[in-house]
């Protein structure tokens, strides 16, 4: 977990470097990125001396980034998303950064990078009786394409890594005194969306 915090801080510091030379003052403007896609991963469980089970996970994820375009290439704002994991509905509320990395071949296509970090809430989640799900920290760096001119609405395609923590208190049976599960979701998310 501390690794991710370090990388986040490092990444945010590096953002300061490219903005040295500006020709004229850039007026900050509202920007939005809304995406919808799947979050994919695997899980290894029932580990014993003899066998192990592996399952592939695929869940729906969606988010909307609303912020301010501070520089031609840099936007800062907040992200609210929703992740429909198999047994928890989490609402990550994050601070987000979007940075345009390059414009390959001066075509109508830009590569952007994103970083969101925040906390996943369980406000919308319904637990079965006896279970209590608590949210946790989430961090999601990503990279993507945007097609279209900067002054128009763009289509975006993004690929991001998502790490979400959660904790569940489970009901006790018979001889049990304490039962709790700590979860870390490590997923790759493919999303498509719009940006303006």
């Amino acid at each position, binding site marked *: 977990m501390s690794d991710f915090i370090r*990388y986040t801080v490092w990444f945010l510091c590096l953002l300061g470097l490219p903005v040295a030379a500006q020709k004229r003052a850039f007026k900050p403007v509202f920007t939005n990125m809304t995406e919808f896609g799947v979050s994919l991963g695997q899980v290894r469980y*029932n580990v014993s001396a003899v066998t192990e089970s592996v399952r592939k*996970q695929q869940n729906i994820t969606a988010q909307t980034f609303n912020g301010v375009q501070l520089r031609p290439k840099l936007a800062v704002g907040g992200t609210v998303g929703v992740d429909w994991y198999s047994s928890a509905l989490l609402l990550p509320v994050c601070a987000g950064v979007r940075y345009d990395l390059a414009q390959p071949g001066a075509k109508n296509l830009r590569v952007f990078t994103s970083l969101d970090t925040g906390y996943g809430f369980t406000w919308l989640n319904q637990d079965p009786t006896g279970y209590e799900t608590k949210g946790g920290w989430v961090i999601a760096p990503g990279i993507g394409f945007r097609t279209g001119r900067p002054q128009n609405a763009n289509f975006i395609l993004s690929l991001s890594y998502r790490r979400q923590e959660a904790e569940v208190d489970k009901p006790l049976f018979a001889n049990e005194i*304490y039962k709790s599960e700590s979860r870390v*979701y*490590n997923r790759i998310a493919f999303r498509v969306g719009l940006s303006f």
Partner: protein
Amino acid sequence: MRPKLYLLLAWLPLLATSCTDTCRETRTYRRFTPMTLSTAQIRQGVQSEPTRTLVNPGKLYTKDGFLFINELKEGIHIVDNRDPAAPRMVSFLRIPGNGDIAIRNNILYADSYMDLLTFDISDPQNVRELKRVENVFPNGQLDGGWWTLDAQRQLVNDQKVDYVTETVKTNCDGPVMNWPQTWTSLTSGSWSSFSTASFDNASAALNSSGTGGSMARFALYDHYLYTVSQTAMQLFDIRNPADPQLGNNINLGWNIETIFPYKDKLFIGSQTGMQIFDNSNPEKPVQMATFQHARVCDPVVVHEDKAYVTLRSGTSCQGFTNQLDVVDISNLYSPRLLKSYPMKNPHGLSVDFPNLFICEGAYGLKTLNAQDAMNISELEHLEGFHAYDVIALGKTLLLIGQDGFYQYDYSNPRKLRLLSKIPVKRPYTVS
């Protein structure tokens, strides 16, 4: 371009996680391993020992400023609590297989696996064994483990209890199914409360029974000691308190766990409700009715014609509501639920009218004003600690928590004042 390259490289270590969810479930449970003891071993094991730390406290009795705290399966801690701000451990009375105690005047009754022991506690610093009635209990349950008496071979087959914590990898999908409970209750034996702090005892003026605070399998009424096992109720005639005589044995059915005498009735607690026995002839209690507003997992306290019952999730009785019920018991044949108050996870409770104290498990202690049953208001909510059971002792409140017994002064019920703490070192931790 350099900074941009660094940005891309910054993500590479993340690939090492290979997008695999990791979910670990940690659970603590009791593991039972069979063990055998000889009856001779058990009988010779009774002695007075130096004080020790509380580990697994069960039933608690308070008498004349002294606390008699049962240490499950081991014996009884004797604590001098005449100054609640400075309780002092006096001694430890070792009784193998002890699960329950009852006190009347200066006589203490305790079970020791299959036997009933009688002690003289007129001088708590110097407890003397008076009598042992042998082979009266055929089986029993202590801390979730069962024991049975093999009278022919003079052996007791018991189960040793270990607390095991293990971590397993799960598939992150959480609830898969709720397994139905098919076996009988395996409660820890120390969380539920049948506090009799304010019930009318016909012989209260002459005798003084101690005030019990935990799940009661022993009960005193008139000149009888009632003991319940899983299926039957065994009476002891204690006309001569130092010399209990074996009395009637009444079959009760299955899943019987607790007994609570109230006026001339006996409430016998099971997992589905409480059976009410008419005790006007104490030698022969007769079943009268069933009180369905409380099961054995639901602590009950009674004040005059109102019963206060707490229901909670996470017990072996498989309930999922968390609330306080106020029941009108002026007519026991048809008790009426007056009102339900939502709670967080209520455990034991105690009443010193109009103050009602409710332990909210991991959520602390609540002090309520129960003057008006239809409008019970909260006076104070102390948080930040576990509260399992509580006994109101007139001026001080004894609270049984995760890591100790706390004593509070409640002369101002809106602001409880902590007086002292008797530490408990439990063999497992509950976060």
